[in-house]
């Protein structure tokens, strides 16, 4: 374990068999080596995601081979592909259904920024509406890049992880880029016609942390 970055003290005599480590670091060590991905694959990045899971690249080498199609069993969401405005509420709901602790990888240009699809329906980066931990560039990224992002995420978990998830509490603001509105002339600004606060869109999503505060 000491070789993997966890400071431990092993007592040989007379307490043979005991290991002493900080609980946070021990928990992070367990978590980072058994990530269970939720494959949110909507486009060609999903094909690379499958290749990453297949035998040649073999994501199992990094302990993340247990792809589960139920968000209740996952702790790593890999968003692979473009997300349109009809899909975004689904994506948010799946994210909310995942138990803590959880992380998100935004795979490819479309998930990270909308890519070439700067159209009326495509969300220009999922990080505008979801907290993202690691971005993977590429169109689509090579499986090696996705593996590197898993390694980077493992590094992030081992550096910042705590057993009670204290590291997430400081992230109280949406982390995406600035609003598109701030980046353009007033002449270019679009006024969304109508009221969209209806139907498929929820404006008070039930979240796991919505418990009564004392």
């Amino acid at each position: 374990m000491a070789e993997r970055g966890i400071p431990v003290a092993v007592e040989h005599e007379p307490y043979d068999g005991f290991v002493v480590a900080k609980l946070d670091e021990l928990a992070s060590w367990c978590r980072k080596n058994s990530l269970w991905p939720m494959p949110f694959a909507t486009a060609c990045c999903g094909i690379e995601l499958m290749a990453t899971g297949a035998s040649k690249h073999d994501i199992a080498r990094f302990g993340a081979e247990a792809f589960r199609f139920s968000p209740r069993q996952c702790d790593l969401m890999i968003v692979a592909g473009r997300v349109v405005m009809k899909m975004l509420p689904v994506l948010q709901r799946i994210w909310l259904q995942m138990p803590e602790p959880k992380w998100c990888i935004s795979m490819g240009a479309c998930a990270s920024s909308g890519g070439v699809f700067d159209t009326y329906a495509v969300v220009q980066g999922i990080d505008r509406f979801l907290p993202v931990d690691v971005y993977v560039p590429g169109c689509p990224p090579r499986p090696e890049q996705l593996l590197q992002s898993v390694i980077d995420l493992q590094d992030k978990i081992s550096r910042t992880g705590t057993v009670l998830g204290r590291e997430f509490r400081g992230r109280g603001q949406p982390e995406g880029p600035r609003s598109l509105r701030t980046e353009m002339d007033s002449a270019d600004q679009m006024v969304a016609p109508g009221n969209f606060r209806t139907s498929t869109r929820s404006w008070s999503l039930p979240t796991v942390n919505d418990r009564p505060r004392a």
Partner: protein
Amino acid sequence: MTTTQTPPVIPATHEPLLAVARSVAGEDGVTVSVFRDNVRFHVVPGKVLAVLKNLRSECGLDMLIDLSAADYLNYPGAANRYGIWYVLESVSSGLRVIVKTWANDPEPRLDSVFDVWRGADWMEREVFDMFGVVFDGHPDLRRILMPDEFVAHPMRKDYPLRGEGERHNFLALSREQS
């Protein structure tokens, strides 16, 4: 939308189709243009349903290949805003003809051809969704691609290309609350 000055040369195969179309819509109701092997009948909007019906029943054009539209806003030389076209084919002979018509603001309307070809169902819904052309007589004219609460018609030329728009009208989740 005819741009050719010289009268188009109509292939002999399409002469009987033109005769049927003109018998329904009158001489002035149908103009013809030809581009390579595409023969286009431009039919006045009020007569297009009758023309299509007769082309199917009398000329054997039994398949509706395509039904789509374009917005000719600011298009050079365009007299009408929305162009709508129907591509018909005879399955037995392979004969094709394109029937074009048009619609205009503020309420672009056409008669639905759902009763002639059931396959027009989703195609008319798509034209309605993207361009806002209303098809009278369609049994279920809902949006087909965009979400139900969407109110704009995004393939219109005056729909903005830049900006936030409806695609960013969502709740942003922070890591703390999710």
